C-alpha cells in the first residue's frame, strides 16, 4: 500500500512497522514530526509504545540505550545540535554496544533554516566509530528503519540515521509494509560497566567490528555504483553523491553519469576506488559539510583530482539545490525573471497577543534606566526578541546558555546581568546553571518566560509545567526572590515594579511571567468546542 508521507513520517512509520518499542526525543526542527507521528499512530497507541517527550536529548539517548539493554528496539530523535547535548551518552553507547536495535536519528539543517549552525552529524557517526545511514528519499527513509535495526542488532552497535531538512519536510508516496512484532524483553547479560578495565576491552572490540561495518557498506543495497558507458565524454568525470545529493545529480544529468550513490557509511572504499579507476576526476556532492570530500581526498591520494565544496565547485556553506548542483556539473540553467523591485524581507515574529511580547515590553522599559545592562537570551520563540521592535537580546548560543552566560558576565562585574529563558529550555538545560548561580550567589536576574509549552516547535508538552516555583526553591533560590507575574499589557505597572526590585536585589532572583502560548490556547479552545 502507498501512503503520502513527509520524510519524518516515513521514518516514524518505518520504525513502528519495524517493531519499535519506544521513541525518545526532545522537539527540534526538522525532527519533531517523527515523534508526533508515533504519538498519534493507532498501532503505536495499541502497543503502548513509549513516545512521551523527554526533558532533553541526553535523557532521551540514555533511556533509549536502556531500552536497547533490555533487548527491545528503540529510536532516539533530535535535531543536529541535539547530538551535542547527548554526545556523552551517544559516544559511550558505541563502547557499551547495544542489545535491541538502536537508531539515533539526527536531522541536520544545512542553510540553518531553524538553527544556529550547519554541523554535520556524519562526523558524529565517524567519531563514535559506528555506521551511518543517509536516505536519499522518503521510501529509503522508511525502508532504512527495519534495515537499520537489523544492522544494529547484527553489529551490536547503535546506528546513526542522518537526514536533512529537505528530506524531513518533503512529502512523497511511500510503499508501506506490514508491521512486525516487537522484540521480547531479554536484558543483556553482558557487562556494560565502563570502568577503565572493561572499557579498554570494549573499545578494542568496537575497533574489531570496523571491518564488518566496512563490508556492510560495500555490500549495501543503498550504495550503488552505476557505470556509464559513453566513453567520449572527456575528461571522464565520476560523481559521488551522498543522500539527497543523488536526486539533484539525477535531476541534472538523468542517467548520463558515472555515479556512485552513497547512503551508508563508513564509506565503501572499494567502490570508490573502482569509480576512480574508471575516471580522471571525482566530484563529491554532499549536503552539509565536506565530510566525504576530505575522506575521498585522503583515500585517493594527493595526485587524484577531487572536486566539491572545498575546491569551490560547490558553495562551502548552505544546502544543496538543483541549481548549485547543476551549475557544478556544468549544466545550463534557464533564463530567469529579474528580481522584483517592490520587495521587502518578512522575517518571522512573535505572534500578536503572545506573552513574550509583554515580557520584552516590560524588560525594555525597566532596563532603559540601566545603560550598562545586558540581556542574555536563549533558544525558543522568545529569541525573536532580538529582532525589531524589541531588540532586547545580546546573545543566544545554545540551550540553557542564558543563565550561565549571565552568571559569567556578572562574575566579571557586569550589572545588571539578565537572563531570559523559556520554560521548556529551562528544564532542558537551564536548571544546572541556576544551581551554579545559587551556589556562587551570583548577582543575576533570571526571567523564565513560561508559556506552558514548547512553543517554537509547534506546542509540545513542556517537562516542567506546574513545577517551576518548586524547582527554583529546590535549587536554593530564596523564596522571596521567586516572583510570578502574568504578562498582560494591563499588568505592566506590576511587572515593571517586580523586575526593578529583583534587579536591585544583589543575588539570584527568578521572575516567572506565566501565560499560556496563544497558539496552544486557541487549539485547546477549538478542541473544547468540538
Amino acid at each position, binding site marked *: 500500500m502507498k501512503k503520502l508521507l513527509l520524510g519524518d513520517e516515513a521514518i516514524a512509520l518505518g520504525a513502528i512497522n519495524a517493531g519499535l518499542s519506544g521513541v525518545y526525543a526532545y522537539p527540534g*526542527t526538522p525532527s519533531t514530526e517523527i515523534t508526533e507521528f508515533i504519538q498519534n499512530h493507532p498501532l503505536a497507541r495499541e502497543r503502548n509504545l513509549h513516545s512521551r517527550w523527554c526533558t532533553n536529548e541526553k535523557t532521551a539517548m540514555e533511556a533509549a540505550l536502556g531500552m536497547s539493554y533490555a533487548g527491545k528496539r528503540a529510536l532516539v530523535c533530535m535535531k543536529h545540535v541535539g547530538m551535542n547535548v547527548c554526545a556523552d551518552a551517544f559516544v559511550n553507547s558505541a563502547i557499551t554496544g547495544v542489545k535491541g536495535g538502536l537508531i539515533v536519528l539526527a536531522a541536520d539543517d544545512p542553510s540553518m*533554516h531553524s538553527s544556529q549552525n550547519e554541523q554535520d552529524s556524519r562526523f558524529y557517526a565517524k567519531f563514535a566509530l559506528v555506521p551511518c545511514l543517509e536516505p536519499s528519499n522518503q521510501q529509503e527513509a522508511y525502508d532504512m528503519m527495519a534495515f537499520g535495526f537489523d544492522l544494529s542488532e547484527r553489529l551490536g552497535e547503535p546506528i546513526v540515521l542522518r537526514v536533512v531538512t529537505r528530506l524531513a519536510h518533503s512529502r512523497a508516496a511511500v510503499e508501506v509494509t506490514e508491521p512486525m512484532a516487537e522484540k521480547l524483553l531479554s536484558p543483556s547479560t553482558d557487562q556494560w560497566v565502563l570502568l577503565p578495565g572493561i572499557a579498554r576491552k570494549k573499545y578494542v572490540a568496537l575497533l574489531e567490528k570496523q571491518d564488518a561495518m566496512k563490508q556492510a557498506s560495500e555490500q549495501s543495497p543503498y550504495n550503488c555504483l552505476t557505470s556509464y558507458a559513453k566513453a567520449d565524454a572527456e575528461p571522464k568525470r565520476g560523481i559521488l553523491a551522498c543522500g539527497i545529493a543523488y536526486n539533484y545529480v539525477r535531476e541534472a544529468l538523468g542517467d548520463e553519469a558515472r555515479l556512485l550513490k552513497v547512503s551508508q557509511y563508513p564509506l565503501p572504499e572499494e567502490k570508490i576506488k573502482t569509480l576512480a579507476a574508471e575516471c580522471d576526476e571525482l566530484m563529491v556532492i554532499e549536503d552539509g559539510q565536506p565530510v566525504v570530500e576530505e575522506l575521498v581526498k585522503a583515500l585517493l591520494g594527493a595526485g587524484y583530482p577531487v572536486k566539491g565544496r572545498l575546491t569551490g565547485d560547490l558553495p562551502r556553506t548552505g544546502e544543496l539545490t538543483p541549481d548549485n548542483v547543476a551549475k557544478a556539473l556544468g549544466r545550463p540553467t534557464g533564463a530567469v525573471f529579474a*528580481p522584483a523591485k517592490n520587495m521587502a524581507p518578512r522575517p518571522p515574529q512573535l505572534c500578536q497577543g503572545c506573552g513574550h511580547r509583554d515580557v520584552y515590553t516590560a524588560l525594555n522599559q525597566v532596563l532603559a534606566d540601566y545603560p550598562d545592562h545586558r540581556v542574555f537570551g536563549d533558544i525558543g520563540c522568545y529569541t525573536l526578541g532580538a529582532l525589531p521592535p524589541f531588540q532586547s537580546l545580546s546573545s543566544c548560543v545554545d540551550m540553557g546558555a542564558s543563565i550561565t552566560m549571565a552568571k559569567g558576565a556578572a562574575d566579571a562585574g557586569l550589572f545588571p546581568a539578565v537572563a531570559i529563558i523559556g520554560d521548556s529550555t529551562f528544564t532542558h538545560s537551564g536548571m544546572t546553571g541556576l544551581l551554579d548561580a545559587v551556589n556562587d550567589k551570583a548577582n543575576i536576574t533570571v526571567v523564565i518566560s513560561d508559556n506552558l509549552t514548547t512553543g517554537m516547535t509547534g506546542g509540545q508538552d513542556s517537562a516542567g509545567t506546574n513545577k517551576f516555583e518548586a524547582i527554583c526553591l529546590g535549587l536554593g533560590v530564596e523564596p522571596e526572590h521567586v516572583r510570578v507575574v502574568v504578562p498582560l499589557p494591563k499588568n505592566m505597572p506590576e511587572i515593571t515594579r517586580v523586575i526593578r526590585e529583583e534587579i536591585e536585589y544583589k543575588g539570584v532572583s527568578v521572575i516567572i511571567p506565566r501565560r499560556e502560548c496563544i497558539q496552544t490556547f486557541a487549539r485547546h479552545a477549538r478542541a473544547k468546542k468540538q
Partner: protein
Amino acid sequence: MKKDIILCGVGGQGILSIATVIGEAATRAGLYLKQAEVHGMSQRGGDVQSNLRLSTEPIWSDLIAEAGADLIISMEPMEAMRYLAYLSKEGKIVTSSKPFVNIPNYPDEEALQKELDTLPSVKLDIETASKDCGNPRGANMVLLGMAAPYIGILSVEDLRQAIATVFARKGEQVVEANLKAFDAGVKAGA
C-alpha cells in the same frame, strides 16, 4: 507531463491546506508527487513557501530549479514576486491582490500592483470573494479555484473530489463551503 508549482504566502495564511488538496488529488490521479514544505520558525508570520512537483514520470529533486516553475500560487501579492527567479518564462502567477502588511517597510502598494501587472499574472481580492460566497475562511480555496485551469495536469473535478476528501472529517457543511469557495475561484479565474 509535469507541473512544478510554488505555493507561497505568509505563515498562517493556509498554504499548506492548498498543498494538501493538490497532493490528495495527485495521489488519486496516480501522479508522482513531491512536496517540500517549510515548518518551524518561519511559520510565525514570516514568508513561507512550498515546492509542489507533479508528474506522470518519476521525480528526482524535492526542490524546483530556478526558471523551472510552471505556476506560482500566492496568498499575498508581494510574496508572489519573492520567488520570481523560480518562475519559468512561460509560467504564470495566480495571486491574491490584497497585501498582508505585518512589516514596517512594506513596499508602496500602487507600485507593487503595477509591477505585478507587468508580469504574467492573474490576481483577485480572494478575501472579498470568499466573504461574498459565504465562507470568509475559504480564501485559500478561492485561490485554488482560480489556479485550477493552470494546474492542468489535474482536472477541476479531481480537485473538487480532493476537497471533499480532505475536509470530510470536518463535516459536510465545511466541505460544501469550501467547494463553493473553490467554484467561485474557478469562475473568477476563467
